[in-house]
């Protein structure tokens, strides 16, 4: 039996292997460290992580990096939440007064630790405070609000963050054995990790009521099974028995085959055959897509499609699905809420389909907008379409990034589908127990979180060479004015006689 909660500092490393369609394999590495906050010296938990949680006084802190896309239509539902492209930070605080200061401290410290541009998240234009999102919802309209009273949530994302080895190296550095021993050794070669079609990695720091601090570092990657990178990583995992991390209380490999999960303890040299695994495809509860409409420099629109999978929608009685949308947008995307239209299977319906709506309008250069919708996809409805129009804001020259003509990345939208749990709901079957497996089991009945595809918004961009033209013209005008003034001031009436 694997120890789930250690009474002392503990470190458990695990990897889940899941074969997907398109000859792809998902590998999910999880490194869980638990330590009591009264322990004076950190034996296994990285000091910077422990310090940031203590200094920010947060209950939980999360920092995630994403690269590449999770192709839900081909690969199905991901084993863990597939994060969007860029960086995302999230924190919860018990008290409002701690949140402002704590958020700044946390983003600064995490940005420094993981070499990310998180200082940009400290500004008021980046951070949002969800009211509905990131909370449980039991179906009651006001339940989420009540739950949100308990904790203050801060969220921000950097969709344009270029995730690279610079972020992975410090992530590996937080592990007790770094990338020199144990499962993390499989992640040592950066080009193998970054050759993945999709990559999500990050850390979740939390405190529990018993004074324990927990750090969960997760990395999910999707590799082609015929690639050299995959062979190399699997080979390294199989050799871990001879090169275990001495700080690890356990090193496990979980191989998922359908609903069954087989666990191998690498410390006891248990052999596993990754090639023998069958292809898994767990259809997501919903497919979500997001796209922009319009092509001009002034107006645009954003459309979000929520689609029930074909198999389920063709069934005679597909159940209603409770869903929640969390969509922050930068201030220069000026949403018009009166243009919000909802279509169910192509037929316009009133807003009654919405259970609850929370909208924070943007304020120029001060605050980004936040749209949260809580809705129910009715039984037998297969597609829900939300449509909103917006104006494109005009930015000042200095507000454009160096690659101004590339466009602006819009923050990802998060979508939570709250499934109705039936008696036949498929829960992963396993004879073993571990924190990670518990999480997997819980994810089968917990809301399914999906991040929507990223978007690029083209804004009216000035010709920056005009600055030099203006500078040259202004300089000429000023020099003429200055010389005229000098001449007028220094000229003497008597000089005219001499000139004659």
């Amino acid at each position, binding site marked *: 039996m694997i120890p789930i909660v250690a009474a002392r500092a503990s470190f458990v490393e695990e990897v889940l292997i899941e074969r997907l369609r*398109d000859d792809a394999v998902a590998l999910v590495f999880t490194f869980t460290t638990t330590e009591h906050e009264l322990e004076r010296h950190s034996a296994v938990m990285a000091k910077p992580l422990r310090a940031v949680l203590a200094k920010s006084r947060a209950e939980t802190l999360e920092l995630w990096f994403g*690269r*590449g*896309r999770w*192709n839900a239509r081909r690969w199905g539902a991901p084993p863990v939440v597939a994060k969007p*492209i860029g960086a995302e930070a999230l924190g919860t605080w018990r008290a409002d007064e701690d949140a402002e200061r704590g958020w700044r401290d946390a983003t600064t410290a995490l940005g420094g630790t993981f070499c990310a541009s998180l200082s940009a998240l400290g500004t008021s234009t980046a951070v949002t405070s969800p009211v509905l999102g990131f909370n449980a919802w039991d179906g009651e309209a006001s339940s989420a609000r009540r739950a949100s009273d308990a904790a203050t949530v801060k969220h921000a994302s950097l969709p344009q963050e270029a995730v690279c080895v610079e972020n992975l190296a410090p992530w590996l550095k937080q592990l007790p054995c770094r990338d020199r021993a144990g499962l993390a050794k499989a992640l040592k070669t950066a080009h193998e990790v970054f*050759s993945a*079609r999709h990559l999500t990695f990050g850390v979740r720091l939390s405190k529990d009521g018993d004074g324990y601090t927990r750090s969960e570092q997760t990395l999910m990657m999707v590799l082609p099974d015929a690639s050299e990178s995959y062979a190399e990583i699997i080979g390294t995992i199989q050799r871990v028995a001879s090169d275990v991390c001495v700080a690890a209380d356990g090193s496990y490999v979980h191989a998922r085959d359908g609903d069954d999960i087989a666990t191998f303890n690498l410390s006891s040299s248990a052999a596993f055959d990754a090639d023998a695994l069958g292809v898994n495809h767990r259809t997501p509860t919903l497919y979500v*897509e997001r*796209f*922009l*409409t*319009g*092509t*001009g420099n002034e107006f645009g*629109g954003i*459309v979000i499609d929520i689609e029930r999978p074909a198999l389920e929608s063709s069934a005679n009685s597909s159940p209603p699905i409770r869903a929640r949308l969390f969509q922050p947008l930068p201030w220069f995307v000026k949403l018009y809420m009166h243009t919000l239209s909802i279509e169910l299977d*192509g037929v316009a319906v009133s807003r009654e389909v919405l259970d609850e709506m929370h909208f924070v309008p943007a304020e120029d250069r001060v605050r980004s907008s936040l749209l949260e919708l809580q809705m129910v996809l009715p039984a037998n409805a297969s597609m829900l*379409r939300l*449509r909103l129009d917006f104006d494109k804001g005009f930015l000042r020259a200095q507000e454009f990034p160096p*690659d*101004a*003509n*590339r*466009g602006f*990345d819009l923050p990802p939208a998060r979508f939570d589908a709250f499934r109705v749990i039936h008696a036949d709901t498929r829960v992963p079957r396993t004879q073993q127990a571990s924190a990670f497996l518990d999480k997997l089991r819980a994810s089968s009945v917990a809301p399914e979180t999906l991040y929507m*595809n*990223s*978007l*690029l918004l*083209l804004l009216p*961009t000035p*010709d920056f060479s005009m600055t030099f033209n203006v500078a040259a013209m202004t300089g000429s005008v000023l020099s003429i004015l200055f010389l005229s003034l000098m001449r007028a001031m220094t000229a003497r009436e008597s000089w*005219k006689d001499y*000139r*004659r």
Partner: protein
Amino acid sequence: MSASPREKIKRLAVACVRRGSFISLCLYVLGLVVASLAPSLARDVYVDENAFLVGSTHATFDDLDGARADDYVETLTKITFDARSRARTTRERLEWVLNALDERGFESYKSWLDGAGDLFNVHGVARAARGNGRESMALVTVLGDGDADAEAATVGLALRAFEKIGRAPWLAKDLMWVCVDGSRGEIDGTMAWLKTYYSSSVGDLGGGFERAGAIQQAFVFRAANRGAAASAVRVKLEGWNGAYPNQDIFTMFRSIVETYPVSMRVSLESDVEVREDDLSRWSLMKSTARFMWRAATGIPSGAHAAFKAHSIDAISFEAIERQQDAYVRSGLRAYVTLGQMLELTFRACNNLLELLHHSCFYYILLGPNKFLGIAEYIAPQAILLVSLLLTALKMTTFGMEDTSSTSDGETRMSHDWFAAISKLSLALVFGAIVGTSCVSLHLRELNHVTVTLGTVAVAFIAFITFLRLTLDGEASPVRSTTKVCDVTIVRQEQWVGVKVINIAWLLFTMSACTFFNFALAFLTTVALAPACLLCAPSGDAAKRNRAVAVLGALPPTWMFVLSRFAGSPVYESFGLLAEHHVRWKTFALPVVFGIAFPVLLICFDVARSPVKSKTKKA
């Protein structure tokens, strides 16, 4: 006492304005001379955007891919023989494309053309394995509007290139292949697809319509008429009303085509006899004239124009087979070369981090190797506009004579602006009536000859009516002077104000048009400026009649010259003009009836105005 520099400048300016009429004529001639010398200023084209990394990559499209493409072409050709009609062939080929994409693991979608019965477009998406899905590139092929063999070669080769590029490890942006049903015209078909792409209306046929982020560049490809043959590549750049894509997209493509391994010539001309390697002055001038004519007509030259209308840089290119080229690739070799051309083109665009913005959108290409930037080509137009401005200033400030200052004191001119603006408004109304008649006659599905004759008749009636309505004769205020506090106010005859307003209208419209369609603005200014500058009344009846006769001869002369240039019969000119306007919404018809016709009416009015040489003292 010598004058200060400021005084000298002022005197020079006053002298210039006072002799405005003469200097204007000199400037007009100078403008034409500068325009004829502009090709001397032409520069060699170059790739301004380094991020293309042109020449830094090698093509992987090989003989095996060429053979695959050949197999696809053969299959598509069989569909032609099996199907009963052209429309059916197109539909079946599109269905084949849809299935072929699906079988190869790519996303494929069908979308309706707007209310066009059973016509549909097909597009496939190759998601870049490591891309972020925010940006995409588009390859466009058109079916149903050209030679069936050429279309089979186009689609077969495009499918193989799409497979190859879509699975390339270097692909960072998603790649879309749009197969357009061109039965109603390639531009309409492409426009319908783009409307579906950029709108939230569901234009799909039940299978969904997935997008691939912001389309950054698009290329419309066609194989040669004989299918598997190519000796050169013809590039089409013209969008609506002389809009052009960023010059870099052309220079990048030219660079790829003209260098190893593609190594073919690039041509901008529809006439295959034109040699782009002839850089003689006369050849460059002809090339400039043809380029400007294509821009002035405002007619889009290919499906890329639909992308340009959506602010996406795009070009159309087609393989051509010419006798003048030493080496004609045929069969498998042609497929390999064209496949490499597509691969290298998309790879260059894949390297881009930003939209094209280094080079310019305002340019004149003197063939594929030389170009004039806006800094060079704007000079003749600026000189022509200054000539108009100078005459207008002169007539406003000094009237018809140099009476700015007298020994008694200051002299100021007074004009009847209300009458002048009224006349211009009336002329514009008549222009609108004639233009509307022209379009209405075309919409009644009359032939071009009838439309031309009808429009000429309406224009003649409008002309006579205008002259009758503006026949003020003796009622026109005569020149008079009034003295108020040492300032002599000279009230000018009415025609002076009318002429100034006429010039101002031409100046204003042509200045604005210069930035939308330079070629059209330049040609219109060249044609109308002499009439505006030179028209003046005369006390001599013979002179007056001569002036009216010359002005009367101008419209038919222009019609004749433009028809010759367009290669169409003169008696169909207004019919064609109306057809183009209705089809493409070009600027040409509004310019003819909103600017040229009213300006000429006013010139007539000025030329036949009575002149009173006697000045009344008030």
